[in-house]
């Protein structure tokens, strides 16, 4: 048995569970009773579907940016040599991922209620209560919370791998901290950043669970439309067409992101 043949089980798996379903989706979206048709795609051109698509992109982008801004400094601190208890903090970042995300989102839905734990505590402290739930901001919160580790870990990994002597060389040559960060650390960490962006943006773009639980069904994203077609309307053709549109958007994003050829150098995913 050579080494190549070790890859066969995965190849077979991928063929059955990834390639075949994909082809089925393509088929369902273009053919109606054996006839080629574009009507499923035309159906999507209604303004409310387009609106849902743009809202998905907008919310996913917002949560990706928030994740990035919050995660980069954390990853920097964690990768620094002087951190003594960084294992603990790293564990705290990863710990929530040990639990099912559905469960955690349900928990947030009841924590953030008007009469939920957090508002009850505010009330006990004589502070005004806040209406957290149901709307765009609650959805963004849910996305940031759920996908934050996916941003921290790749950036942290790449930062750890940066040869410290390069950073020292920069200082020796007279660069201050800001310049070193801008010209040395940031460019070297880009693969991690790009992986992080992809890992957060993709699930945020396609989620339907967070919108339902934290958005109270009032935020209609592209994922919700697809889910509806498959579970309730049973319009497989239209559901497949919307999935295809979503996949094309994901593909465009990936191509755009992978223009940086640095993806293979560390945090790269694909």
């Amino acid at each position, binding site marked *: 048995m050579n080494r190549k043949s070790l890859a066969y089980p995965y190849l077979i798996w991928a063929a059955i569970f990834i390639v075949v379903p994909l082809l089925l989706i393509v088929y369902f979206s273009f053919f109606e009773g054996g006839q080629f048709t574009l009507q499923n795609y035309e159906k999507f051109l209604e303004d409310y579907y387009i609106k849902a698509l743009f*809202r998905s992109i907008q919310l996913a982008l917002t949560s990706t940016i928030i994740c990035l801004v919050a995660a980069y400094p954390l990853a920097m601190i964690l990768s620094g040599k002087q951190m003594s208890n960084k294992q603990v903090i790293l564990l705290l970042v990863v710990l929530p991922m040990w639990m099912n995300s559905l469960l955690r989102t349900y928990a947030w839905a009841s924590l953030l209620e008007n009469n939920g734990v957090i508002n009850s505590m505010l009330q006990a402290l004589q502070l005004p209560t806040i209406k957290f739930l149901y709307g765009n901001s609650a959805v963004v919160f849910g996305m940031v919370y759920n996908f934050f580790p996916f941003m921290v870990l790749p950036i942290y990994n790449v930062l750890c791998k940066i040869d410290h002597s390069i950073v020292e060389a920069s200082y020796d040559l007279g660069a201050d901290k800001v310049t070193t960060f801008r010209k040395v650390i940031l460019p070297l960490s880009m693969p991690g950043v790009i992986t992080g962006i992809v890992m957060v943006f993709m699930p945020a773009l396609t989620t339907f669970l967070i919108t339902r639980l934290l958005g109270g069904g009032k935020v209609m994203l592209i994922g*919700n439309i697809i889910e509806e077609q498959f*579970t309730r309307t049973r*319009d497989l053709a239209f559901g497949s067409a919307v999935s295809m549109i979503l996949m094309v958007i994901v593909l465009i994003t990936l191509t755009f992101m992978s223009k940086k050829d640095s993806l293979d150098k560390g945090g790269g995913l694909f």
Partner: protein
Amino acid sequence: MNKMIKKILMTGAIGVWTLTLVGCGASKESITVYNWGDYIDPEVNDLFTEETGIKVIYSEYANNEEMYATVEPGNVNYDILVPSDYMVEKMIHNGMLEKIDTTQLTNYMHIDEEFKNLPFDPDDSYSVPYMWGTVGIVYNTKLVDKPVDSWDVLWDEKYKEQIFMYDSERDSIMVALKKLGYSMNTRDEKELEEAKELLIQQAPLVLAYVGDEGKGKMVNEEAALMIAWAGDAMVMMDENPDLAYAIPKEGSNYFVDSIVIPKGSKNIAGAHQYIDFLCRPEIAARNAEYIGYSTPMSAAKELLPEEIKNSEVAYPPKEMLNDEKMEMFNDPSDVIELYSSLWTQVKASN
């Protein structure tokens, strides 16, 4: 050589012995039941197994559409399903149900006449009524001061962000159509368009479009008003005495969930036994008390505790039910796509 033969014989013997064991296991009779979540007293299944020796393999679904999506491809075989009226109609229409031989059911006589020969299964050959109920408004009497008797209250600015609607196109469009005075089974696109406009107008007042989790939230007083099925209302009112239930005067949905045997059932005889067991008044009463929904058997109703038996929520006066404003859903297959697109427009409107 002898040793070899001995070994082979030995292996063979063990093989045969194992086979018999496995055979024994498989011959233990079982039925597969697929029912709504929280829709039976769990002990009832154990009682059935105790009495008949038939094991009950039980699983649950959240709504008719989910059940249909699971059953339709035909790769999972169930012996018992509990669809609602319109879904029974759809499944009969699609040839997905086995006939039920009611002569085999010794307890079938307990089913009240008014629940027989219903329009979705006119000669009762495919379904046996299990539970029934109405759709209405659950409201918190501490937060809503005027009496609730109309769907209009769900459009009242005063209750902005205090209203839960069901995240279900069928129930929401039903409410809007009823408020407009139309039939909830209308296929008139203009009427449906009006219903959509009404729901869009309501959207800013709605706190959330909820699923089953809405029940718990109502009990916790997250919102003041919610659409609910009477059976759920019974359970919610039991947990929070400030809650009350009303069927609006414009009329509403009146439903019957029935037991059916789908095509592909591997144990039709066992399924009949199970149906008969559920129709036994003591068992039906047990289920009705546990889940809060209304039983279609007077004999079972008589066995219920006074406060349930006399509850107008669970058992509204007959003249109310016979009012033509109370309707059952028809098979919605022909409008399901239109409904879905209308509902998307409503939810994407804000």
